[in-house]
C-alpha cells in the first residue's frame, strides 16, 4: 500500500516536472524564434503650447525606427517606440516616464522635449538606471554623477551662449552690448549668464541689461533706454514670438539699426506675421546649426541635402517644421542602434560603457557626437552657429554672414 502511494507520488511529480518543463521549453523556443523588440520610451509634448518641436522630432524618431525595422532591426530585434504625450507638463512627463519604465519595461527613454519637463524627469529616470536621451538645453540636465546613464545629442545652453556672444563680439565687432530677455526663469537665467560670460571675457562693456514680461503690451521705453545706452548689438533671450516681434517693431520705429542676436525663436515662423513690416526682420540673427544651414549660395551641406531628399521622398513633411528637429530624432534612434550593436547588448551598463568609450557618432544633425566618462554632452560646439532670422525655407535657415565657407 505504502509502496503504491510512493510510486503514485513520484509519477505525479514527474508529470508536474514534465509539464513545467514543456511550458518553459515552449516559451524558450518562442523567444528564440522572434526576438523581443527594443522598447524605447518616447516622452514628447505632442499637444499644448510647447508641442511644436516635439511634433518635428516625432517625425524623425518614427522615420528612423521604420527604416531600421525595414532592414532587419537591431541584431534581429525590432525597435518599438512607446510614446506618451506629456503636453509640456512636468507632472505628466514624470507620470509618463514612470509608466513606460515600470509598465512597458522600456530599455531606453528619449525626451521629454523641453527643459522644464526634463528637470522633473531626470532624477526619476536615473533611479531606474535606464539609458536616457533628454531633449533640453539647460546645462544641469546632464551630470555624469547625478544622472550617469543620461546622454545629450542636442546642444546645451552654454553652447548657444558661446555662439551668440562670439558672433556679437568677434564677427559684429561690438564693444558695447545690450542684453534683454523675458522675466521667465529661462529668460533671466540666460540674461545673467550672458552678462557673466561677457564680463569674464573682458574687452566689452554691457551698456544695457533688462528683463521684460513676455506679455508686456509695449516695449518702446525699454528699446529707447537700450538705444540711449549706446549699445551696438542687442542680445535677445526670449522664446516668446510676441515679445521678439515687439522688440523688432520698436527698434524699427526708432530707426535704430542695431543687430539683434540671440534665441532661435527670433527666427520662428510665428514672428513673421507679427512684424509691422517684413524689413523689421533684417539684421536679426538666431542661433542655429551649421549642418542644418544653407550656405551663401543657398545650398545645404551635401550630407544634409541627401538626408532632406531621402526623408522627403519617404513622405516626411519638412516645410512646417525645423530640419534640425527631424535630424535630432533620426540621430538619436541611430545612435541607440549603433550603440546596442557595438555593445552587443542593450543592458544599461554595456550601453554606458560603449558610449563613454569615445567613439564618434556621425549623424546628420550631430555630425560628430562624442562622449566620455566625464562628458555626456555630445554636440560639437563649432557646429552651433548664427542664422539669418528672415531666411527660413524648407525647414532650414541661411547661415549668418561672417562664417566663411
Amino acid at each position, binding site marked *: 500500500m505504502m509502496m503504491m502511494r510512493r510510486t503514485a507520488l513520484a509519477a505525479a511529480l514527474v508529470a508536474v516536472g514534465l509539464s513545467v518543463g514543456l511550458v518553459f521549453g515552449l516559451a524558450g523556443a518562442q523567444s528564440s524564434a522572434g526576438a523581443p523588440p527594443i522598447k524605447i520610451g518616447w516622452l514628447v509634448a505632442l499637444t*499644448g*503650447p510647447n*508641442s511644436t518641436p516635439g511634433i518635428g522630432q516625432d517625425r524623425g524618431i518614427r522615420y528612423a525606427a521604420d527604416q531600421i525595422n525595414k532592414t532587419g532591426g537591431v541584431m534581429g530585434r525590432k525597435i518599438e517606440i512607446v510614446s506618451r504625450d506629456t503636453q509640456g507638463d512636468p507632472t505628466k512627463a514624470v507620470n509618463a516616464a514612470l509608466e513606460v519604465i515600470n509598465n512597458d519595461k522600456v530599455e531606453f527613454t528619449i525626451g521629454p522635449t523641453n527643459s522644464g519637463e526634463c528637470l522633473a524627469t531626470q532624477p526619476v529616470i536615473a533611479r531606474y538606471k535606464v539609458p536616457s536621451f533628454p531633449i533640453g538645453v539647460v546645462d544641469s540636465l546632464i551630470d555624469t554623477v547625478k544622472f550617469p546613464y543620461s546622454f545629450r545629442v542636442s546642444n546645451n545652453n552654454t553652447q548657444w551662449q558661446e555662439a551668440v556672444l562670439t558672433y556679437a563680439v568677434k564677427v559684429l565687432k561690438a564693444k558695447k552690448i545690450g542684453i534683454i530677455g*523675458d*522675466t521667465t526663469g529661462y529668460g*533671466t537665467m540666460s540674461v545673467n549668464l550672458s552678462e557673466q560670460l561677457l564680463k569674464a571675457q573682458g574687452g566689452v562693456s554691457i551698456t544695457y541689461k*533688462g*528683463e*521684460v*514680461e513676455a*506679455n*508686456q*503690451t*509695449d516695449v*518702446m*521705453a*525699454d528699446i*529707447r*533706454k537700450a538705444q*540711449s545706452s549706446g549699445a551696438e548689438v542687442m542680445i535677445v533671450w526670449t522664446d516668446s*514670438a*510676441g515679445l521678439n*516681434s515687439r522688440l523688432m517693431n520698436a527698434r524699427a*520705429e526708432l530707426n535704430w539699426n542695431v543687430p539683434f542676436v540671440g534665441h532661435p525663436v527670433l527666427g520662428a515662423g*510665428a514672428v513673421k*506675421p*507679427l512684424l509691422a513690416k517684413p524689413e523689421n526682420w533684417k539684421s536679426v540673427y538666431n542661433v542655429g546649426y551649421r549642418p542644418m544651414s544653407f550656405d551663401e549660395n543657398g545650398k545645404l551641406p551635401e550630407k544634409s541635402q541627401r538626408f532632406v531628399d531621402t526623408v522627403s521622398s519617404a513622405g516626411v513633411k519638412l516645410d512646417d517644421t525645423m530640419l534640425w528637429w527631424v535630424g535630432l530624432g533620426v540621430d538619436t534612434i541611430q545612435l541607440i542602434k549603433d550603440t546596442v550593436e557595438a555593445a552587443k547588448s542593450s543592458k544599461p551598463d554595456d550601453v554606458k560603457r560603449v558610449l563613454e568609450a569615445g567613439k564618434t557618432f556621425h549623424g546628420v544633425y550631430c555630425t560628430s557626437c562624442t562622449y566620455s566618462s566625464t562628458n555626456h554632452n555630445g554636440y560639437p560646439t563649432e557646429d552651433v552657429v548664427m542664422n539669418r532670422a528672415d531666411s527660413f525655407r524648407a525647414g532650414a535657415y541661411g547661415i549668418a554672414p561672417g562664417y566663411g565657407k
Partner: protein
Amino acid sequence: MVVTILVAGIATGAIYAMIGLSYNMMYSTSKVVSFTPGQLGMIGAVFGAWFIGVLGFPLWLGFLGAMGVAVVYGFFTELVAVRPVLKSIEQHLYVLTTLAAALMVQQVVAIWWGTDPRPFPILFGLGAGLSSEKYWLPVVACFLAFIGLELFYRKTLWGAAFIAVAEDAEAARALGIPDARIRVVSYCLAAFIGALAGFWGGQLLLAFFAIGATLTFYGFVPIAMGGLGSNRGALIGGFFLGILQQVANYFVGGVFVGVVTFVVFITLLLLVPGGLFGSAVARRV
C-alpha cells in the same frame, strides 16, 4: 522718455480699466466676483482678428461679430456658472464655476486658434510712433464705455433698475423689478465692455489665447484699488496701474513689476481698506 512711458502706460491702463468696468458690471447685480472678464478681453482680440484679419470682414461687421461672441459667452457664464450657485453664495462656489468657465474658453480658443500670438489688424491706420492709433484707440474706447455706462445708469429706466438690483436685489424684486433678467443683461453688457478692451486694445495685446489670464489678473487690481463696484475707481485705478507698471519696468526692471505693483496695491488697501472710491453700504434696520 517720460512721454513714451506715459503714452504706453495710459494705453495699457485703459485696457485694465475696461476689464475693471466689466468686473464691476457683473458684481453689481450678482455680488459675484467672476473670473471671466480677462477672457472676454481675449475673445474681443482673437475674434476681432479672426473676423477682420482672417475672414476679411469690414471693421463694423468684425466689431459686431467679436462683440456678439463675447455677449453669448457672457450669457452662458451667467446661465451655467453663476445662476446655479447664487443660492449658496456664502459658500463662494462661484470662484470654482467662473474659473472653470474662464479656463474652458481659454483652452477651446487655444486649440482652435493656436497657441502662438497672431497679429491684430490695423483698424484705421491713423498716426505713427507715439500718436499711433494703437495707443489712443483703447483710451477713447475706455472713456466712451465709462460715459456710456454713466448715462445708462442716470438717464434710462433700465439703468435705474440696475442700480436698484445692485443696491438690494430682494427689495427690487419686491418692487416688481425682474432681478434675474437684469442680472442676465448685466452679464451680457459686462461681456460687451470686456470685449471692447480686447478689440480696441488688440493692436497692443495681439490676438493671443494667453492674454486672458493676464487681463483677469491685472484687471482686478484697479477695482480693488478704486473700490469694488465703483466705475470711477476702476477708471482711475486702471490708468494708475498702467502707468505704475511702465514706470516700475523702466526704473527697477521687468522682474520687479509685479512686486512693485502689489506693494503699492497692498499699502493702498491697508490705508484705505474699501478702495479709493469705495463706500460703506448703508443698510436699513
